[in-house]
């Protein structure tokens, strides 16, 4: 047992912190922008892309990839340290959809050719991805998706619709799960995993604004979109296994606890300045410190398992569930502390933390849905982790 980072890991943390203090967007540090509500900032896409390329240039987007694909072959704790520091410094640039969703799918299941074509773009931070999984009728019940890809010579032709496609409005590429066999039983055996250039003719992206007023989501329509066969990851009708392989990485990508902790510190600092942290709120603060610490340890544990090459089962779901819910609890605490002030929008000069309280609170409704709902996470823990029987 050992609950500390190695001297090399600590040195890396110092290096990252120093870099972010110098290179991170100053305005965001001042306004204490949180990772999940960065899309509320003016000109945010350009700032996000710029920072992504700065991180890519330092080799920090491929820290734990094998060296043969341009990575540094380091333990996944380096990735975690980088993300802890990014959260602490209110800094964008880590495009999880590329680095932690698309890249592992390609690394784990893609051909040599796909790895050579796509990994350098992700590592450089220049090429940004989005995720084509959910559909209007199928979210938690992902295996039932209907968007259909029909074989046509060297291509597949896609028709259908995806929804809740985060950042499709500016992504360069999409990984897409589509049905290639309607007769397959069980249904998940008829799915294929495609890599799609978002500039391909026939793709239409429409914005969906969330209740926080931010544009993260989109709906994406496919109208005779032609995808070359060489863009299939793994092989036809094996897309489900690719999606499942990346899902555990997706669940451990965003450090819920670190985002929650940063927000908690920001709330407490601002509340002390305004003399709004009474004794009761101080005890609630202590409870949230405990909750974040437990979520942190749960995340460290699953990262340790990944570092050891152990197969994770329910652990990633547990880690995501409590990490993301800790952000919700902290966001709620913001309202508890600032009361009516906390409900003022970022346009109001009276709003504490430049309106972060209200926007993080509203954004937090999504945290128990994204990357798999908390209900699906609990199903996974009960069935995979505890061996309880399945009804369906």
């Amino acid at each position, binding site marked *: *047992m*050992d*609950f*500390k*980072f190695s001297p090399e890991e600590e040195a890396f943390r110092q290096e990252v912190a120093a870099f972010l203090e110098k290179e991170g967007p100053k305005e965001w540090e001042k306004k204490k922008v949180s990772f999940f509500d960065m899309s509320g900032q003016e000109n945010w896409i350009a700032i996000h892309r710029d920072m992504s390329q700065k991180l890519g240039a330092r080799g920090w987007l491929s820290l734990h990839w094998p060296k043969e694909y341009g990575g540094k072959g380091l333990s996944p*704790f380096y990735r975690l340290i980088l993300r802890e520091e990014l959260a602490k410094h209110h800094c964008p640039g880590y495009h999880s959809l590329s680095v932690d969703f698309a890249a592992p799918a390609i690394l784990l299941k893609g051909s040599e050719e796909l790895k050579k074509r796509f990994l350098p773009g992700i590592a450089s931070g220049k090429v940004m991805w989005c995720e084509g999984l959910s559909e209007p009728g199928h979210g938690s019940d992902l295996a039932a998706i209907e968007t259909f890809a029909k074989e046509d010579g060297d291509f597949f032709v896609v028709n259908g619709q995806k929804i809740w496609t985060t950042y499709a409005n500016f992504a360069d590429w999409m990984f897409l799960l589509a049905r290639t066999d309607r007769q397959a039983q069980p249904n998940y055996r008829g799915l294929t995993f495609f890599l799609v250039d978002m500039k391909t003719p026939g793709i239409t992206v429409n914005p969906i604004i969330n209740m926080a007023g931010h544009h993260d989501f989109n709906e994406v329509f496919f109208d005779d979109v032609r995808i070359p066969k060489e863009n299939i990851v793994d092989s036809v009708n094996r897309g489900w296994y690719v999606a499942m392989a990346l899902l555990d990485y997706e669940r451990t990508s965003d450090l819920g606890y670190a985002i929650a902790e940063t927000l908690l510190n920001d709330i*407490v600092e601002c509340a002390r300045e305004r003399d709004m942290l009474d004794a009761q709120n*101080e*005890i609630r*603060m*202590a*409870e949230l*410190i*405990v*909750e974040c*610490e*437990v*979520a942190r*340890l*749960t995340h*460290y*544990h699953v*990262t*340790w*398992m990944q*570092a*050891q090459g152990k197969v994770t089962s*329910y*652990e990633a779901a*547990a880690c995501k*569930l*409590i990490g993301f819910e800790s952000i919700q609890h902290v966001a709620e605490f913001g309202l508890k502390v600032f009361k009516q002030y906390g409900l003022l929008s970022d346009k109001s000069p009276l709003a504490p933390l430049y309106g972060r309280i209200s926007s993080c609170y509203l954004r937090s409704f999504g945290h128990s849905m994204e990357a798999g709902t908390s*209900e699906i*996470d*609990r*199903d996974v*823990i*009960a*069935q995979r*982790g*505890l*061996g*309880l*029987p*399945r*009804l369906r």
Partner: protein
Amino acid sequence: MDFGLNEQQEMMQTLAKDFLAVEYTDKVLKAMVKDEKGYTPALWKKMAEMNLLGLSLPEKYGGVGDFLDLAVVLEEMGQACFLGPYFSTVVLGASLIMQAGSDEQKQKFLSEIAEGKITMTLALNEATDNYTADEITLKTESRGGYYILNGAKIFVPDIQSADYFICVARTKETDNPVDGITLFIVDINTAGITVKPYQTVAGDKQGEIVFDNVKVSAKDILGEVNQGWQYIAKVLQRANVARCAEMVGMAEQALKLTIDYAKERVAFGHPIGAFQSIQHRCADMKIDIDGAKFATYQAAWKINEGLDATKETAIAKAFVSQACKRVMHSAHQVFGAIGFTEDHILHYYTKRARVYEFSFGGADVQLAKIAALYR
């Protein structure tokens, strides 16, 4: 970062698990809860032979292993709902003597503890139980080579079976409550001591001690005169983390029983464990237990490394207290009426977990400590 057990810890875990499976069945547990002292000398002897009583003590006194090994064993004891003066003797008594004792005291007491010859406990609480120095008021009067003690101590664990106890007494009145506290090693048979055993709902053994002109030699002072609180502050951390390890074990066992039952109990044509309402409850139990375990071992590791574990201990005890309670309540809900009966084993765990939760400060005490650290 390493969340794995090393070879020694795995060995201790297996040893304790196998030992308790044979020696500490539910039948034994039920008998021990009714027993006046809560353990048998025969069992104690076997534990000494297996080196369990010398755990975390230095080798030269017959000890073996470190605090992490001890935490691993305590987790196993929690799973068995073990009752007996193990915690009071090894975690409280032995670690205080190890910390503060003279060579002579260490030689005598630690060796005898490891050999299973004596049991010990700590007399700390008085009228209140916030575990702060200002609560210590037990009067002492210095008379040359000895002291006269008058007053009372309450909630003393395992006092029914203790051969010795360490008494936390006030030897000087100052404005600083931390200054003026002295520890005394007291033989239970000293004249003037009256022990009043408590009846508790969990059947755990504790009671109070009344001191009527109890005469203790100055040679039996443990550590520095007037500076005794520093040892208590440290032992409180060890005690809290040890209680956490026991509660983790108890919660693990409650979940195991619950899962077994949910797989086998059929309603509406299905095992109840197939229903989401039960599955989600069980998932939450699992999340709580994993988190409780990580927080406990993080604090145990810090203590073992000799690092400051103030915050980590408070975090562990605050979380484990709340998590363990949630787990027990959920276990009862899944078991339904059968778990509500006196015959069932579950309530032995539920009740004892509440005792451990509040001993050395429950969640509220710990949260207040954490809040103070951030002020």
